[in-house]
């Protein structure tokens, strides 16, 4: 075991994993994150705590992770290189290790221009792939980026993001391979609506044998309304929402029900894709729906490891 996290044990034992997102509040209330933790505790194997997601300042991911851990929920520490240089990243990795956090997701982060501090200076000292490599070296060789020795263990299950829907498509699997070579033990993908493109990407990944070197968790975004579907289709760079999905949402008498239906159909299809080892549900501002989706997808009860 690299980290001993439940997520690692579930994936390494060949079981289908379920993770979800628990975004911290724009404030200091522990309750917000605790409520999400309680809600999702029994239907997920680990919860990702986002890191100033979409460049909007929120409670730190590390703080959120610790609150979840205190509840007995396993956190995934999301970290973006937009806000921290190599010193801060390594320091936070050690702090998280000391606090018993065992999963980390290494990200670039959305550009600060999108957030609520668009005049901020972006850091981008290292990129997400170099970050993955750095954490792997800290874990496996007990060495900092500069080669100095680290005292103590840094047991992390290292995650990375992948977006099969960004361009150029042919390069997406090469970039996945770079992340796997850098040390990504698991991958959480962008939300999937365009199944044709996802299966094509998975095929390319399998051709390179990547599905055997890393655990790919397929991303899902439950859609609440036609407005949300349209917004994602037109305004979110790197998200591919086919017109068919928008139409289904527009025609639905009960859009929320339709959203759940779409999500469940997607999960059914994903289960059949060779190399998909789990799902990652990003129900931003609709966390309440996650237990139902996991239940109706036939993924309950969650394994105890």
């Amino acid at each position, binding site marked *: 075991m690299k980290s001993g996290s439940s997520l690692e044990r579930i994936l390494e034992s060949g079981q289908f994993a379920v993770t979800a997102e628990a975004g911290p509040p724009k404030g200091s209330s522990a309750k917000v994150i605790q409520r999400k933790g309680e809600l999702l505790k029994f239907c997920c194997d680990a919860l990702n705590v986002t890191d100033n997601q979409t460049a909007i300042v929120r409670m730190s991911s590390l703080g959120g992770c610790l609150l979840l851990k205190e509840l007995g929920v396993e956190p995934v520490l999301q970290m973006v290189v937009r806000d921290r240089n190599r010193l801060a990243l390594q320091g936070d990795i050690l702090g998280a290790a000391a606090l018993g956090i065992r999963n980390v997701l290494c990200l670039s*982060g959305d550009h600060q221009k999108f957030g609520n501090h668009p005049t901020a200076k972006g850091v981008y000292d*290292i*990129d*997400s*792939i*170099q970050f993955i490599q750095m954490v792997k070296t800290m874990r496996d060789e007990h060495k900092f980026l500069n080669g100095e020795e680290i005292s103590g263990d840094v047991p992390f299950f290292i995650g990375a993001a992948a977006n099969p829907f960004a361009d150029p498509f042919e390069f997406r699997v090469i970039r996945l391979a770079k992340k796997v070579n850098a040390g990504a033990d698991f991958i959480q993908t*962008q939300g999937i609506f365009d199944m044709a493109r996802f299966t094509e990407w998975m095929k390319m990944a399998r051709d390179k044998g990547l599905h055997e070197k890393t655990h790919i968790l397929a991303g899902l975004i439950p859609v609440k309304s036609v407005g949300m579907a349209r917004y994602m289709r037109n305004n979110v760079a790197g998200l591919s929402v086919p017109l068919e999905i928008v139409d289904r949402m527009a025609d639905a008498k009960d859009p929320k029900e339709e959203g759940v239906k779409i999500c469940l159909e997607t999960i059914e299809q994903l289960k059949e894709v060779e190399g998909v080892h789990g799902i990652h549900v990003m129900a931003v501002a609709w966390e309440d729906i996650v237990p139902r989706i996991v239940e109706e997808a036939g993924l309950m009860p969650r394994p105890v490891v």
Partner: protein
Amino acid sequence: MIVAKRKPFEEIKESVVGAKRILVLGCGTCVAVCLSGGEKDVAILALQLKMALKLENQDVHIDELTIERQCDREFIEQIGTRVNPDDYDVILSMACGAGVQLLSDVFEHKVVLPALNTTFIGVAEKLGVWSERCSGCGDCILGKTAGLCPIARCAKQLLNGPCGGSVNGKCEISKEVDCVWQLIIDRLTRLDRLEMLEEIFPVKDWSPAGHGGPRKMVREDLKL
């Protein structure tokens, strides 16, 4: 070239409040080429200032002068052969930030003010359009990135791009901005060298990029 853009007129006017004699000083090199601080631009700004100040009944004398380069002492020292610097209480420089600072060094007792915002090292794409190409990072990587710089041109300075926001060749920050990583991939594909990108690009040493403190270049062989 160094590309610069004139500051908003109101800001310039505000900055010279109280001055009685102003020298608007242009620079004949980069900023003249990008049509911000050359002879013509000096004439326009001087005229605008004269008119605006006159409307406010302010009695201000304004002269114009453009020298070859404000980033070179040799040219700055020639100013004295054409005007008497002591005649002015403000020198309004239309050079890049380097020029403004060298003027301040030379004219120790004079107020030197910038009329331009220095923006980037770039190229003239077409008439009226300039764009950034170089960040002056001090350790050129163009040989490894198909001659296209991700430090100057990727919004996240990724060395292992493109990120997940690259769509239809455009950057996630705007549909108006090319994703340089798409351009790099296209170019390497044309050159049949795409495999270059399979290697992980190592972490960059930012110390020559200015993070090691202000930079200086010394050529012993040229020193007098």
